[in-house]
């Protein structure tokens, strides 16, 4: 439990900073009620920031739903990966699903502790950080000075998670190829950022290991 909380603190701090940024950005576009509701119910930075950007550009409901669907594709993969590690009843798994974020899933996969517990503890910490951040952003808090440092947390964290869950050199090589593919796709077609990581992960994982 203590190790999980310690490992979850850096991403929780970054999530808090982005929560503040989200609260301050969303308030003029969505209003206070919708901003609070979106953070309470959606609890996904990537989806929520995209929603604000689309609302700002005047996009309709169809575009919002389509983008949210695309961004959520990776949750299907993470859910399938976690399914083999979460040995609980269906209702319990349904509850645990609430906390299945990229960061919480990564920490659960990298930890030697019970995956379900890590998901709930880390995911719960991230949820609280996101809500407090959103509330402070709505109240006018500013974290511009911390934004750059918070931005650096995510690539570093994902590199660390990738390394920690890597079982062999073969999978490490696949991870490197996936990173190159995604970097190329993100540079060439920025619109692919929502799903490129999922497609690349599936593609590089398909070939079986040579015997």
């Amino acid at each position, binding site marked *: 439990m203590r190790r999980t909380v310690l*490992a979850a603190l850096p991403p929780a701090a970054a999530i808090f900073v982005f929560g503040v940024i989200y609260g301050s950005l969303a308030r003029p576009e*969505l209003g206070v009620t*919708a901003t609070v*509701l979106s953070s309470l*119910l*959606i*609890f996904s930075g990537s989806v929520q920031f995209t*929603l604000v950007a689309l609302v700002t550009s005047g996009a309709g*409901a169809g575009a919002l*739903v389509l983008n*949210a*669907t695309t961004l*959520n*594709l*990776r*949750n299907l*993969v993470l*859910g*399938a*990966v*976690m*399914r*083999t590690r979460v040995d609980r009843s269906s209702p319990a*798994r*349904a509850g645990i*699903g609430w906390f*299945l974020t990229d960061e919480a899933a990564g920490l659960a996969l990298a930890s030697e502790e019970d995956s379900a517990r890590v998901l709930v503890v880390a995911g719960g910490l991230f949820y609280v950080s996101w809500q407090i951040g959103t509330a402070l952003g709505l109240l006018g808090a500013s974290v511009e000075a911390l934004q*750059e*440092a918070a*931005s*650096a947390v*995510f*690539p*570093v964290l994902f*590199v*660390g*998670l*990738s*390394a*920690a869950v*890597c079982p062999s050199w073969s*999978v*490490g090589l*696949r*991870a490197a*190829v*996936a*990173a190159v593919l*995604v*970097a190329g796709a*993100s*540079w*060439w077609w*920025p619109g692919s*950022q929502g799903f*490129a*990581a*999922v497609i690349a*992960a*599936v593609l590089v994982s398909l070939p079986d290991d040579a015997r």
Partner: protein
Amino acid sequence: MSVWLIVGIAALTYGSRALALVFMREPREGPRKLLDRMPAPLFAGLAATSLFQDGTLVDERTLVATAGALVLTPTRSLLAVLLGGFAGYVLALLVL
């Protein structure tokens, strides 16, 4: 933005998180091996994604922090990689 649209997108997001976790059966050996191979490439892809914003690379400090993290990936320790990233970021603050 209507409350119902937010509720709908929230349902979509939660549904995507819970679908496989709740309804997928225990996979057989073949699919299980495939699933076991996927997390590392997925997180590597997410790391690559977070290095770009609208088709351009993020700031130099984040890139140096990521390089610092990459140097320590052979340790396969999350803590070591995070420390590598922190060291890279501090170095970038001092040098750049």
